């Protein structure tokens, strides 16, 4: 299709979309299905440089060649030909809240974004469908030289930084879903923290899936230059809809010498979403990476935040909590690859299965030969609330060096009857007692979350726990 014909087609689609009342006007909605032309269209619509288009097309070929993983959850129901790969609700990224289209603003009001945008939580950037539409930064951030924007703007304004790091941490060939994301990515966050800068407030990004059959393929790139610190927070909610949807993000983080990055995310996708995410960090000398990860929603989540410890004394932590209700499968965990001596890692995973829910911990600790003085500790605890619930633990420790300290413990059980009895003897109902024990169980992770996320997490778990007794 020639450019002129393509544009004409889009103009028609746009006109059609505008005629439908009470709907978000999608300026461009790629037709369902994926072929090289769709990939080129996405790149064309975004006016991307040739090198990015080439990366996308190469990744598309990789995606076609790679097999779907046979381990983990059941992925057989994903129909790649029924998904839409690109959608853009508004033509340009709004810099002022008032410029954001009203129907999108209403949706955000329901999500409570303005309340979240308080004194300490300034850098709010919201994502609706596939692209960031609202994004605000305080002047002092700009003065510090911190770049916090959506990925598309990042690519347009800072192509040299993006070109240098894009796909270096998670290459397209890493797995099928990383390849898919690389070929059709859209939106996500781009965060650059210059040397020695400490960002004292958490940076937040809200995003959500809204229309039926929309795949979300964000691409997030975070670069923390030597000695810097940043806390990035990402949370998402999605409304309920019928047919299965796919969320496949890639998050790449580079922690330079002595820098520290904390990445907090709580996902609460609708219970028909496949959430297949590749998250990885390269941590250089004396750097610290902390993943705090909450998984509550989705039909199936497969997510293993990883730390590659590449410099002496680098440190990586993964804290994760998962809740699987009826029909859900949370296959989560963490990986630590000790690629340098004297590196240390901690992975703490807590999971709760209720009804027919299934939680799995899948992890990997690797110490190659010669990496002396490495330390790693992995703890996974699982609670089973119903006779139909299921919990699995699949950790792997591959140690090729003798001068190390590696520990792992896991336990699976149910809420202790003595605990329930004690609380009930103090006048709590069985329901309240159960909720309290579960809250206590996830407390070590909840306390690491920003306060409003911790509250939200506790509230969501309380909601999920309703009707779990008797």
């Amino acid at each position: 299709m020639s450019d002129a014909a393509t544009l004409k087609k889009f103009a028609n689609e746009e006109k059609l979309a505008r005629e439908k009342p009470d709907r978000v006007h999608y300026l461009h909605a790629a037709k369902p299905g994926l072929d090289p032309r769709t990939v080129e269209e996405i790149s064309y619509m975004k006016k991307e440089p040739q090198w990015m288009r080439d990366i996308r097309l190469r990744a598309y070929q990789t995606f076609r060649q790679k097999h779907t993983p046979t381990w983990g959850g059941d992925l057989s129901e994903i129909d790649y030909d029924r998904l839409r790969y690109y959608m853009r609700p508004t033509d340009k990224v709004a810099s002022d809240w008032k410029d954001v289209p009203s129907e999108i603003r209403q949706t955000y009001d329901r999500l409570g974004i303005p309340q979240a945008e308080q004194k300490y939580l300034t850098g709010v950037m919201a994502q609706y469908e596939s692209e960031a539409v609202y994004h605000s930064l305080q002047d002092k951030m700009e003065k510090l030289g911190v770049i916090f924007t959506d990925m598309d703007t990042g690519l347009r304004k800072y192509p040299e930084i993006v070109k240098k790091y894009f796909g270096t941490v998670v290459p397209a060939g890493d797995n099928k879903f990383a390849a898919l994301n690389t070929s059709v990515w859209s939106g996500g966050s781009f965060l650059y923290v210059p040397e020695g800068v400490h960002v004292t407030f958490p940076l937040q990004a809200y995003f959500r899936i809204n229309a039926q059959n929309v795949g979300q393929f964000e691409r997030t790139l975070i670069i923390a230059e030597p000695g810097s610190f940043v806390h990035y927070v990402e949370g998402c909610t999605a409304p309920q809809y019928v047919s299965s949807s796919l969320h496949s993000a890639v998050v790449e983080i580079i922690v330079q010498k002595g820098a520290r990055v904390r990445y907090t995310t709580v996902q609460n996708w609708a219970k028909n979403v496949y959430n297949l995410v590749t998250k990885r960090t390269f941590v250089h000398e004396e750097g610290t990476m902390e993943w705090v990860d909450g998984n509550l929603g989705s039909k199936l989540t497969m997510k293993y935040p990883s730390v590659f410890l590449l410099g002496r004394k680098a440190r990586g932590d993964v804290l994760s909590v998962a809740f699987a209700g009826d029909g859900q499968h949370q296959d989560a965990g963490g990986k630590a690859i000790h690629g340098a001596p004297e590196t240390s890692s901690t992975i703490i995973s807590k999971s709760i299965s209720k009804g027919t829910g299934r939680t799995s911990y899948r992890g990997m600790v690797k110490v190659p030969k010669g990496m002396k003085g490495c330390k790693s500790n992995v703890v996974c605890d699982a609670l089973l609330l119903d006779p139909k619930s299921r919990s699995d633990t699949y950790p792997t420790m591959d140690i090729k060096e003798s001068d190390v300290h590696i520990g792992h413990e896991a336990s699976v059980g149910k809420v202790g009857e003595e605990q329930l009895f004690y609380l009930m003897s103090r006048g709590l109902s069985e329901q309240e007692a159960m909720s309290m024990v579960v809250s206590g169980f996830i407390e070590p992770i909840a306390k690491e979350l920003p306060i409003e996320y911790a509250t939200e997490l506790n509230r969501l778990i309380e909601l999920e726990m309703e009707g779990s007794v008797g």
Partner: protein
Amino acid sequence: MKITKDTSLELQKSSKLEIAAGKQVTVVLKGSGNFQISVGRRAQVQILEMVKDPTCQQSVSIALAGAGAHATLTAGFLGHEQARHELDVIMHHQARATTGDILIKGVYADQSTGIFRGLIKIDRTAQQSNSYFADNILLLDEGKATSEPTLEIEADDVKASHGSTTSSIDADQLFYLRSRGIDLPTARDMITTGFLQPIFNRLQAV
């Protein structure tokens, strides 16, 4: 082979055992092989081994088939030079109120390798079961080890846990022994022997 009386026996090659209800049996494993042991109602089995061979490839599958069945596996491994040991254990809880306890201790010196996979599987029919898996590895010189303890739990009123450690000899312990006039090789031997002592104790009791 069906065991219908209290006994103690030694298995040297791949074999299938079925332990009748209520019997108490001690099994000592020798060498490589595929061992399948099914434990009947309220029967108890104690499986023991101490492996020092240059190569050993074992797969031990324990089925706790009858209510109240109990099994323990106590295994010590000592690897030198190019030794390579591989052990797959499955503790499969199929019936109510069954208990399992696995203890593996391995020492790998020189260029030796140990690979340990342990699966605790609790079926939906095996409520009130309790299972534990522990593997402790001591690495010396250029020894290598892989541990894959896994859990698959489908019943809720159960306890299942595992613990796994991999480390080298604590420098403080070595220093203490040497400050008492003990030379390095002897000190290392003492610590290694101490590490494996719980296994020797159980073996001697047979």
